[in-house]
């Protein structure tokens, strides 16, 4: 599947759900906003509304690293075993060069080796004091769709879904999440009624 076709598939999303409150987004954004000339990594597909919000309102530089597209490509080519290598190569950024990371729910789709490589790379490129926001589901392991998150405002997210080749196969316990991000400081962990956990980490100053 070409990038063009993948993008077309991403655009075939169900209508956006009503906005859901985010308990940690405001805190994440305030930590980001406090940093001058901030740079952020967005691990999801490029979303125009998020680019406008983060670029114009927060004023940060955004690195779009659509891991869902990479994951989907590997799943379709039966090459998920090589995905950790792909993750390793996707982060060519120097050490401590970005100020924040939006992981969305990508860790739900990664097996332990790939999740370990991703967490290590994120910790490497993150500057001291920089936040990392991740969403972790509590179930639905067989679901074969990815969620596209749209920042509605500082406290609300909307999401819509599009089909994917990789199942959401990895429900992680809090201790597993904490182990992945060992070395970072846990700022907040909130369980939403939807069963999604929002977890906010920060690299110690």
């Amino acid at each position, binding site marked *: 599947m070409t990038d063009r076709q993948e993008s077309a598939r991403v655009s075939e999303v169900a209508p956006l759900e009503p906005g859901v409150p985010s308990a940690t987004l405001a805190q994440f954004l305030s930590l980001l906003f406090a940093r001058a000339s901030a740079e952020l990594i967005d691990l999801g597909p490029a979303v125009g509304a998020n680019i406008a919000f983060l670029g*114009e309102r927060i004023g*940060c530089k955004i690195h779009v690293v659509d891991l869902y597209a990479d994951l989907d490509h590997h799943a379709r080519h039966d090459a998920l075993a090589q995905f950790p290598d792909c993750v390793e190569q996707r982060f060519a950024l120097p050490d401590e060069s970005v100020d924040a990371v939006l992981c969305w729910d990508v860790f739900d789709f990664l097996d332990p080796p790939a999740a370990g490589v991703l967490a290590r790379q994120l910790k490497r490129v993150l500057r001291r004091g920089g936040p990392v926001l991740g969403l972790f589901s509590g179930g639905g392991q067989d679901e074969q769709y990815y969620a596209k998150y749209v920042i509605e405002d500082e406290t609300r997210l909307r999401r819509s879904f599009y089909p994917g080749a990789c199942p959401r196969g990895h429900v992680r316990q809090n201790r597993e999440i904490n182990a992945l991000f060992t070395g970072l400081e846990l700022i907040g962990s909130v369980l939403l009624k939807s069963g999604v956990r929002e977890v906010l980490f920060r690299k110690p100053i």
Partner: protein
Amino acid sequence: MWKREDPPRPPVVTPTPEPFAQAPSPGRVDHTREEPRLMREEPTSIGKSIVISGEVRGSEDLTIEGRVEGKIDLRDHVLTIGTNGRITAQVCAKSIVVLGHVTGNLVATDKVEIRESGSVEGDVVAPRVALADGSHFRGSIDMQRKEMPGAPEAMPAVSEPAAEMRLNAGVTDELVRV
């Protein structure tokens, strides 16, 4: 429905031949007289079958439907990369509209717009960036907030207690702390 129609073109008046000027022979088109008018009215376009390797510079708007490899510099003008356009180049323009495929960095002093059919792999630097749903983008986006005159007011920094207060006030019924 409300699209304004193009104004009717004035009839072409054949200039009176100057003394000693040769009358055009039958069947021969005099392009030299047409060219200035066309350049003023028609946007310049690089057609589908055209392949350019090297540097493209200009001082007028340009639409590219062909292939360009190298560098494009239209500093004060609008560059449109049409649906058939395939660009592998560093691009600099006032505004850049992408409907085709670009591999390379885009720098615009006004705006970069990636339409639904557009695809960009590279870094974008512009005060305003618009990505349509369904467009493909891979790279980084820098909207140069500091250099934007008249930019919308930035979001005030939310102190952690303030953020906490807002959360508690707005969403407590839908959240369970763990």
